[in-house]
């Protein structure tokens, strides 16, 4: 479904992505981890073209991102993205947050969009909050709304960039639960996270990045199971995170 082929990216002379390659198959849950600044966010954002790249290619659902003149809005509308800081639109209430892109991008009728929005809101367990504004919800609730907002667009894949790292510890669980249930339904996902317990539970594969390069790309069982299979760098990272 998604092919990342030898992708490299530079900010001036500074290389942020170094020849990254991987394939994400339909229904697969791939967790990306690695130290701060290793290029995880950048990699995940290249998949919906929020970040460009200078070398290599990414193919999303058969469409090559290195081509010129592709319909980016259309492509992005099918790639759901959830950010670290939720990024709900604070001037719009929850319903309006849910329907905006459905109406403007997918050209759905308002009633249809609202119906879909409320269904997704219900799915993340927040249907009673549809008339509130984002600022009136807790961080965990906002992030669940952000997930619902992405699901409204019927995405073929969901991208998560550290969806729980801006949350108070007691709210991490409620957001992870939603992601786990998505995984169980067979949603294709790429998720940057440091929640290793969660990663172990849901992921099929783990990608470990360092200095812009993919160092490990292993089946979850291999990554977490037998430490001899992974590089010293990844072992060190894991031990730090797990202590933490």
């Amino acid at each position, binding site marked *: 479904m998604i092919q990342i082929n030898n992708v490299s990216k530079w900010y001036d002379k500074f290389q942020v992505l170094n020849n990254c390659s991987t394939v994400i198959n339909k229904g697969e849950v791939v967790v990306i981890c690695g130290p701060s600044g290793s290029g995880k966010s950048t990699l995940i954002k290249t998949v*919906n073209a*929020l970040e460009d790249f200078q070398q290599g290619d990414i193919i999303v659902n058969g469409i090559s991102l290195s081509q010129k003149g592709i319909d*980016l*809005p*259309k*492509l*992005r*509308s*099918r*790639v*759901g*993205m959830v*950010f670290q*800081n939720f*990024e*709900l*639109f*604070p*001037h719009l209430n929850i319903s309006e947050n849910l329907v*905006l*892109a459905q109406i*403007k*991008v*997918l050209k759905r009728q308002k009633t249809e969009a609202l119906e879909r929005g409320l269904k997704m809101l219900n799915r993340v367990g927040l249907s009673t909050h549809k008339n509130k*504004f*984002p*600022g*009136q919800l807790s961080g965990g609730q906002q992030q669940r709304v952000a997930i619902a*907002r*992405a699901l409204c*667009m019927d995405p073929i894949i969901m991208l998560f960039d550290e969806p729980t790292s801006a949350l108070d510890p007691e709210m991490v669980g409620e957001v992870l639960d939603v992601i786990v249930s998505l995984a169980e339904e067979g949603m294709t996902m790429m998720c940057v996270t440091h929640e290793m317990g969660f990663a172990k539970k849901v992921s099929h594969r783990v990608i470990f990045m360092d200095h812009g390069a993919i160092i490990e790309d292993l089946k979850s069982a291999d990554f977490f199971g037998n430490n001899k299979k992974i590089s010293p760098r990844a072992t060190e990272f894991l031990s730090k995170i797990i202590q933490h």
Partner: protein
Amino acid sequence: MNLDFSFFTSAVIKSFIFKGLIFSFQLTAVAMIGGMILGTFLALMRLSNKYYLSLPSSFYVNTLRSIPLVMVILWFYLLIPLILKRPIGAELSAFITFTFFQAAYYSEIMRAGILSVSKRQMAAGQALGLTYRQCMSYVVLPQAFRNMLPLFMTQTIILFQDTSLVYAIGAYDLLKGFEIAGRNFNRPVEMYLIAAFLYFVICFSLSKFTKLIHQKIKIIH
């Protein structure tokens, strides 16, 4: 000095003051709305990474902001007829001038407003498939406007006070109404006192009104 306000009747208000008041309000409203629209475009141009958009915009804004309004009023009054090849009258000239002049100030406020909205909001909109233009219209500009509302209103109050500068081209505004009435009844001091009081009341209510609206539509973070 004896102050005598007895001449100030509703007939005086009707025949001298009302007309000027309406014009001052109209001028403020037109220049506010027109200036905000034009100013928003100027701000977007200025923030563009295309130099052929940002340069003209910053040239325009900086130029108009460094010339006193009275001079702009006079120049427009003298220049527009030359360009249009026909006289347009003091009132219309004032509408055009104030709109273009205010646009320069509103654009700076709008620019600060746009910059006050985090870039991640734009990214979130784009990630949902919204185009740049849609993100601007539905996500960034409404927030920018709300964040800057107090400054917009302050600027509008200044604008209202500045409408009195149309005396330079002989248009009939609120102050002019008081001036003429004062002269007619030979009571200029009283008239200017009332004028000052009225300007104060209007501006003070406007600023209270602003605070109220701002409270109402403030974004809760």
